[in-house]
């Protein structure tokens, strides 16, 4: 697992998770398409939040998926949170 220290790396990891939920290949997932358009509802958002917390050691709320509905938007937000954590250490 590469370190998730850039927006691109985080987006790649998120894409792989979303692809696994959809039983599809990662390159089938458009990182700028809202996840809801793929039929991923709030329940998937909860699962994804759990995986994000365990993987990135960040506390995230399901509102993440409401406010950042695409892979790229989510990755940008998460990278900002991680960078903020590094800066405050």
């Amino acid at each position, binding site marked *: 697992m590469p370190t998730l220290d850039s927006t691109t790396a985080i987006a790649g990891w998120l894409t792989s998770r979303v692809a696994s939920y959809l039983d599809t290949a990662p390159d089938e997932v458009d990182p700028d398409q809202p996840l809801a358009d793929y039929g991923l509802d709030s329940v998937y958002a909860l699962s994804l939040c759990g995986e994000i917390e365990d993987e990135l050691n960040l506390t995230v709320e399901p509102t993440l*998926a409401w406010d950042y509905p695409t892979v790229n938007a989510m990755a940008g937000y998460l990278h900002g949170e991680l960078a903020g954590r590094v800066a405050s250490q």
Partner: protein
Amino acid sequence: MVHAVLTADLESVFGDPFDHANPVGHDAVLAADERSEPLVAGEQALDAWQANAEFVPAELGGRLTTVDALVRRLRPVFRRDAALGLGYGVTSLMAALNVWSGGTDAQRKQLADTLLDGQRVCVAYHELAHGNDVTANEMRAVRRGMSLVLDGRKEVINNAGRADHAVVFARTDERAGGRSHSLLLVDLSELPADRWRRLPRYRTMGLRGCHLGGLEFHGCPAPESALVGDVGAGADIALRSFQVSRCVTAGLGVGVLDAALFTVLRFARGRRLYGRTVAQIPHARSTLAGAFTDLLIADSLSTVAARSIHLLPANGAVYAAATKYLVPLLLEQAMDELAVILGARFYLREGDQAIFGKHFRDLPALSIGHAGGVSCQLTMLPQLPQLARSLDRAAQAPTALFDDSAELPKLALDALRLRSGPTDPVLAGLPDLLTALRRADRTEDTAALAAELLAELAELRYDIAATTPHDLGVLAPPAALALTERYATLLAAAACLGTWRHRRRSGDTAWIRLALHRLLARSRPGVLVQPAELDEALFTELTERAAHGQDFCLDAGRVHRQLVD
């Protein structure tokens, strides 16, 4: 006006329920129920007691400090008449929680004054077409200039026919998702009278004294200042309030079983059949002991959940849902079993046992009124994988979660999370608590119980790990939904064990052993035989408490009711 001083406990206010002359006794409660009217004398007693102050935080002049204390102080109302409790004002609390957490200082002050003035606030989430699927709700609030224009209807809303204030959940964005709805605190008396109306009352099977009605709006402008929190924050705020109100309704329901159990015990001691009293028949004694144990389980779980709101707010989302799922089920199943003891008396709407029938009808209505069982299961299900993954590294719950003499931190609704995580401190404590029980009780039965519960925990983790996100939504297969029942059952086992260990009680292990037997039998029926001496021990405690005027809850508090010899 400050209402911080609690004058008397409600048990003393309500007096002996079996006294025929008591204006808030069983006769009066049943007569009001037959007329489908609220118990007026009960509402007056609650007014005099300033019951609404229970719903207002202390810093705003009320008496609300902790969720646990709120439940314990209001439980006497539900012991007497659940329709009175819900109808008088628990729904005002459900409405107000949103304003306490999401409102401006001005809104908080306004609502506090309204409630402390004795007025009701109704909470308008429900639309018949959408049930617990709240984010599908259709009623709209559309911004036009400085107004929000309301269109649509809210149905089966308690007190909608008589409250002058409402907290309304309305769609403010056509897109799907969690940001589509907002909350509004509306003073109905200030809305243009030709743009809204109160819907007629709905007739119900239980809680017949409640004024369940509705509200309908047609292009009705509400001031922008009615918004509670940001536009789109409705679900966010409501899902936090639900965690508190789920713990509260579950905990209050325990009072209903407490009263019903007394009624049946009183009957069983007086009724003679086959040359002996019903209370001398082993099946009846075992049923009564089992119902008493289920009550203690329900109280343990709902108390732990209520205290978790303060101590483990990151876990409220799953603990409250598990509690609101399992506690009503335990209570209703205990009522079913107790009904058997009453025999044909169960069907009579008159006589000393008629009150049992009322409790029996009220309880399911109370349970479903806030969030139905399956809705709670669906809330739990997607949260389980992360909790199960983290059990080995989870810190254990603080002992104050179980010890009712420990002070709780202030209620902080904004500390609650929409999703429980990252760990599950209560369930993580199960193995150590079982070890403590085995040290205190070296019987083979306890060793077997501990082994079976640990095996069930291991299997549950395995089965949760085997799910995929596809299994965890509304279309979850029944086996996946069953994981939530098994989870809630083990959570209840941990809650009971923590209560047994850390709350000041006698050193006896009978109740905790019988509690664990009954919980285990839910997930693994028939694997262990419950020793008959446990039934006898619980039956003895039950009758002693009844004889000494103590309730059947964890508190064993004073109650005004007596057995007849």
